[in-house]
C-alpha cells in the first residue's frame, strides 16, 4: 500500500494514502473559541467545514505554527472512505472530515504488508500502529482513527 509520509519535528510518520482526501497549505484558520487548544480551528474546504487538529499538540509536544513548509493533511470521512474501500484492508478514519496540521510533508512510499513491524513495547502510543524500516531510519505508521477521534481519548482534550 502507498503511504504519505510527513515530519513531526525530526520523526518521520506515515498514513495510508487511501485515507487522505487532499493535502493543502495556507488555509485560513477560523478559531473556535472555547475549543481545546489542540484544535487549530476550522477551515472552509470548498464548502466543506473541516476541523483541524494540531499534530504537535496532539502528541503533547510543541505546537506546529503555520509556516511555508507546514501542511494540512485532510482525511476522508468514514463514508467517503467506504466508497473507495478495498476489501483487503479495513480502514477507519472519523465520521467527519478532519485535517491534521504537520511540520512538513515528505515522500510517498510503498510498503508491503510483510514489512510492517509491531511497535516496540517501550514506545507504545495510542496513535502508533506499525513501524517500518527505511534505510537507516524508522517510519512510524499512525492509526488515523485514533488521532481523528481525540474526543474518545479525553486526556488529549484537557
Amino acid at each position, binding site marked *: 500500500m502507498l503511504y504519505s509520509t510527513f515530519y513531526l519535528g525530526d520523526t518521520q510518520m506515515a498514513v495510508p494514502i487511501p485515507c487522505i482526501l487532499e493535502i493543502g497549505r495556507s488555509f485560513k484558520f477560523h*478559531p473556535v*473559541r*472555547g475549543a481545546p487548544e489542540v*484544535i487549530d480551528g476550522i477551515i472552509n474546504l470548498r*464548502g466543506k*467545514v473541516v*476541523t483541524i487538529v494540531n499534530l504537535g499538540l496532539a502528541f503533547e509536544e510543541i505546537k506546529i505554527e503555520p509556516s511555508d513548509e507546514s501542511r494540512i493533511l485532510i482525511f476522508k470521512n468514514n463514508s467517503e472512505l467506504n466508497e473507495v474501500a478495498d476489501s483487503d484492508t479495513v480502514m477507519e478514519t*472519523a465520521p467527519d472530515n478532519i485535517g491534521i496540521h504537520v511540520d512538513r510533508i515528505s515522500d510517498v512510499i510503498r510498503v508491503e504488508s510483510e514489512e510492517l513491524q509491531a511497535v516496540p513495547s517501550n514506545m507504545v502510543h495510542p496513535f502508533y500502529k506499525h513501524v517500518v524500516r527505511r534505510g537507516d531510519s524508522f517510519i512510524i505508521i499512525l492509526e488515523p482513527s485514533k488521532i481523528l477521534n481525540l474526543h474518545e481519548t479525553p486526556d488529549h482534550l484537557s
Partner: protein
Amino acid sequence: MNLDDEVFKNFLVEMGEKLEELENGLAELEEGFSEDLINKLFRAVHTIKGGGGFFGLTKVSELSHVFEDVLMNVREGKLSFGDHMISPFYSACDALKGMHESDDFGNNQDIGQLCLELKSLETGLKKEEDPISELGDITDVEPNPVSDQTSEDDGNPTTKTELKKVTNKVEVESEKVVLEEVESKSKSPVTKLSKGNRAEKTVGQNETIRVKVDLLNKLMELTGEIVLGRNQLLRQFADMEDKSNLVAMAHMISDLQQLVLQTRMQPIGGTFTKFKRIVRDLAKQLDKPINLEIKGEDTELDRSIIESLSDPLTHLIRNCADHGLEDPSSRVSSGKDRVGTVWLQARHEGGQVVITVEDDGKGIDAEKVKAKAIANNVISQSEADSMGENEAAKLIFHPGLSTAEEVTSLSGRGVGMDVVKSTFEKLGGAIDLETKLGSGTKIIIHLPTTLTIMSSLIVRIEGDRYAVPHSELKEVILVRPEDEIQIEEIRERKVYRLRGNLIPILSMEEITSVSKDHMVDNEKKSDQKEILFLVLHSGLNQFGLLIDSIDHTEEIVVKPLAQILSSHTFYAGSSILGDSDVAMVLSANGICQSHKLHIHDLETSVQSTKSLAEMQILDMQEKQDLLVFRYSKNEQLAIPLSLVFKVEQIEVKQIQKISNNHFINLEGKNILLLYLDKYLSIESLPDDLETFYIITPKIKDFEVGIVASSIEESVHTRLNLDSPPINENAILGITTIREKITFLVDLFSLAEQVSPERFKRAELEGKPEKDRLLVVEDTPFFRDLEKTYFESVGFRVTLANNGQEALDLLLDRPNYYNLVVSDIVMPVMDGYELVKTIKSSEKLEHMPVIALTSFTEEESRDKALSAGFDGYAIKTNKENILRAVEHFLIED
C-alpha cells in the same frame, strides 16, 4: 401559483380529512348514539358541502346537502336516530370518498338513488333494497368515466410503446382547475388499455408521488450549498455593472430554496390525530374519562422534526392521563368536571413553533418532587428550600426522577421526562413547565420550524464573527453612557434591567471560559462607551450576550460540528458565510444549558416574564414595540416593529437608478427604494451620506425598502398618540420617544400611496379606522381564505377558531374590533350562541356581527337575523365575501 388553485388543493386535503373524521364518527355511532357525535358528523358533512359548493363540485355538494339535512333533522330531534340509518350513512360516506378520489369529483356520477335513500330516512320509510348492493353499483361506475384517453391510443394500441399523458381538466363554471399532468411510461405495449389506465389514475388522483426521504435530504443539502454559492457570487460581483444574469439566477435560487424547504414541511396534524386514539385507549385502560382538545393541526414543521415528536409527545400525554388527571371520583369531590381535559396545541410564534400539552389535573406536588430529589441526592436540602413551585416541578426533567408512587404499565418507570427533554433539545428546541397544585400542569415546547437553512444575524465579538439565528434572537439593545438603565454588576455577575426583568448578561469570555488578550483594553474603553448586546431566548429563558458590532443578516446553512467538538454545546454548528469565511453558529439553548441558566439564574426572570405577560395583556392596546429611525437629520420617525421584516445597511454606490426609480439588489431581489420625503412633508435626506439603512416592511405585495439615514433604536413603549396637527395621510400620529417628537408612520396608507392599484382601500377611505375584523371560522381553509381576501383590501384581520375563542378575544379588548364576521356551524360554541352572547353582553352589545355561512336556504337567513346577526352573507366567491363586509361598514 394561482390563489384559487392553491385554495382548491387545500380544500381537497381538508375534504380528505373530513371524510376520515366522518368515517371514524360513523364507526363510533355504530357503538352508541350521542348528540356530540351527530354534531361532529354534521360539521364534517357541512364543511364538505360548503367547499363542494364553493368550487362547483355539484354532485359532492348535492349529496352532502341531502346527507346534511338528515343529520340536521336528527340533531334537532325531528328525527330519532335508529340503527337502520347507519348503512345508508356509510354508503353516502363511501360515495363521497369515491368522488373525492375520482378525476371529475363525481360530477358525472349518478347519485339519485343514494339521495333518495337518504331522503327516505327522513320520511321514516325504510327501503327494502339492500343498500350495500347499491354501493357496489356506485363504486363500479366510479372508476374513471372521463379520463380522456387520446384517440391514437384507442385506435392503435399495439404500435404505441409509450402510454401518453393523461391530462385531467375539470372545468367548473368559470373556475378552472388543472390538475398536474401525469406522465407515465409503460415498457410493454399497451395491450390492456383499461389496466394501464387504472394504474395511471392511482398516480394522478392524489397529485403526489413518493420520493425517498434520502433524496429529499440530498436535495435540501445541495440547495443549501447553492444558496451559499449565490451569496458568495453576489458578494464577489457586487461591484460589477451588468449583472442581470447573475441577478436572474439569484432570483430563481431564492424560489428554489423556498420550494425545497416546502417539500419538507408538513402539518403537524397527522401526528396530533393519532393521539385521539391513544387517549381513547388510555381512558379505557385507566378507567378515567378523558377529553382531548386539539388545536393548530395545520401548523407546519420540518418533516424530520415532526417525525421525532411523536414519541416524546406520547410520553407527555400519557403522563397527563396517568399522573396529571385524577380519578373521576376525586375530580368530582374537588369540584371539577368528571371528565378530565388534555389540551394539545401547536402554533407559530416568532419563527418558532410552540407546542403546549396541558391538563386540568392535580398539578405537580412540588414538595413531593423536592423530597424525592433530596432522597436521590439530586439537590441539597438548602437548595430545595430556596426553590419555587415551578422550579421544583422542573426537577422531573432530571434523570432518575419520576413522581408516580407506583410504577404502572403506562409510565413512571423513572425514565422518561429526561429523555423527553433531551429529545426536544436535540431538535434545537426547549421545554418548559408551569404547574399549579390542584389545577393542572402545562408543558411548553419551543421548536425551530426547520433545521437546515436559517436566517441569521452575523455579529462580531472580539474579532471573531458569529451567526445568531433570528429564531433565537429577541432584540438588540444599545446602552449609551447617558442612559438611565445601565448594565449592573451583582457579585461579579452582570445583569440588565429589561422592562422590569433582570436578565443575566453574558460575555463570550464567560461562555467559552477563554479570555482574549486584546480584549482587556477594549473593555476598559467600553466602560465609557456604548455597550451593545443581543437578547437571546431559549424557551422562556432569556439572557443578554455582549457583542462588539453587528455585521449583517444572512441566510446561512448550518453545518453540524465535527464530533471532536460536539461537547461544545454553546455552538449549534458552523456555517460558511458569503465571503467564504467560516463562522460559528451560537445556540441559545446550548448556552443556557452549559451555564445552567435554566435552573437558578433564570427562574426569577421566568416568573417575572409571566407576570409581565399578564401585564402586557392588560395594556396591550397602548404598549408597542417601535423601530425608531431618522430620515433627515432632525426628524425622528417610528414604525411598529411588528411590521418590520428586515433592516439592512447599504452603501450609496449599491443603488441602481432606472428611469426615476431607485433600486437595490438584496439577496437576489430587486427592491424599490422609497424616499419618505416624497410622501411626507419632511426634510430631504442629507446629501453627504455614504451608507444608509433600508427598512423592509412585512406587508404582503409591498416589497420596498424605506430609506433611513440612521436607525436609532427599538423601543417598547406605551404609545400615547396625538393625532397629527397637519393632515398627513401616511402619518398615524405623533408621540414622544426619548424626549423627541416622533412621527409614527402609517405603513398601510404609505403602501396605498405608492401602489394604489394594489392597495385599493379607496372604497373605505372615509373610515380608515374601521378596519379591524375578527374572523371566526372553524374550517382552516375558509379561515385562511377569508383572511387573505380581507387583508388584500386592507383590513386587519384577527382569527378565532370558534365562538368561545372569539368571545375571549372580544372580552379581552372590547373596543378594539370594529366588526365580527362569523361562521355559523362551529364546534365548542357556534355562531348563534356567539351572537346571542355578544348581543346580551353589556360591553359588546353594539358590536356588529355578520354571519358568513354556507347555508343557502332563505330560512337560515331569517334564523340568523333573528338570532341577532346584523348581516348575512353566503360564502360563494370572493366578491360576495368582500361585499358583505364593505357594504356593511359603509352603510354603518
